[in-house]
């Protein structure tokens, strides 16, 4: 499956969805005016990927320093697609990275985890690591 690689901008994150390498990452800042449009390619990619994924375990890493409400909704929509693989016996891991002192971003991840009714793994890092 062709990989998806979207480069980051001042208002949008980098997205790498690479099925061959098993690499799935959303990193940077996500404050686009229309998050639905921005995340549309990733959403379509996820829809196709989940229909053909043959592995047992899927892991996505999300590391964002800011995300607006539209981005929260768009990312939840994409994560919902991945989580829907669970009834097919797939393990779905969501790694939520947050800067050590930034409890707000951790809380945002916890809220998203509750909304999806799916546990996230929370991984803290020091500020210089992003």
């Amino acid at each position, binding site marked *: 499956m062709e990989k998806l690689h979207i480069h980051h901008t001042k*208002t949008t994150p980098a997205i790498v969805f690479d099925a061959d390498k098993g690499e799935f990452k959303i990193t940077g800042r996500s404050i686009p*005016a229309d998050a639905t449009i921005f995340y549309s390619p990733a959403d379509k990619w996820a829809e196709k990927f989940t229909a053909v994924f043959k592995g047992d375990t899927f892991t996505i890493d999300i590391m964002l320093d*800011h995300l607006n409400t539209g981005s929260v909704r768009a990312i939840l929509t994409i994560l919902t697609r991945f989580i829907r693989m669970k009834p097919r016996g797939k393990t779905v891991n969501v790694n939520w990275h947050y800067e050590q002192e930034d409890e*707000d971003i951790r809380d945002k991840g916890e809220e998203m985890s509750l909304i999806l009714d799916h546990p996230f793994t929370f991984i803290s890092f020091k500020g210089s690591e992003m």
Partner: protein
Amino acid sequence: MITENEVKELLLDPQTDWFYLGEIDEDLISSFVSLVESRPDFLKLPRPSRRRLISAVVESLQNIQNNTPVITTPQAGSVVFMQRYQSGEFGLLCGNIMRTNEVDALRQKLDHINAADPILLREMYMKQMEVSLDSGSRTNAGLGLLEIARAVTGPIKYKFLPLEDGHTFFSVELFLSLN
């Protein structure tokens, strides 16, 4: 037509750093964020304060961008946005022209949000997000205001200034603790 001077009288005070009157687009929002982040005092703020500040700036401006109706009178896309520092707080003042027949609904929404404590605001945000996801809605449907309320210190102070031809100038004043 609302004039620049009327906006100044409504919102400007000596502690205001700058203001803008015109249309808001994505590039402008990005520039505003860069402007805030380039301030020497911004980088001295604790990380959570910086995140809340940027969140409030982005949500406020995108709220204006998404909710300012397309009109030709009194003035197309009239918006204003300002910031100021005072005694340990960062202040944002911003506003946009809206249709007067939508004022009551917005006032009720704001009063409902202002009456909520942080725990209830979180519940309201999560419930509204679930509704938005279930409905497949592309609009923020009040989520932006809830996010603003969660980022700022104290209630969202707001004003409605009636204009001509069924339009009203809506402004909000927000404060964020820098501690």
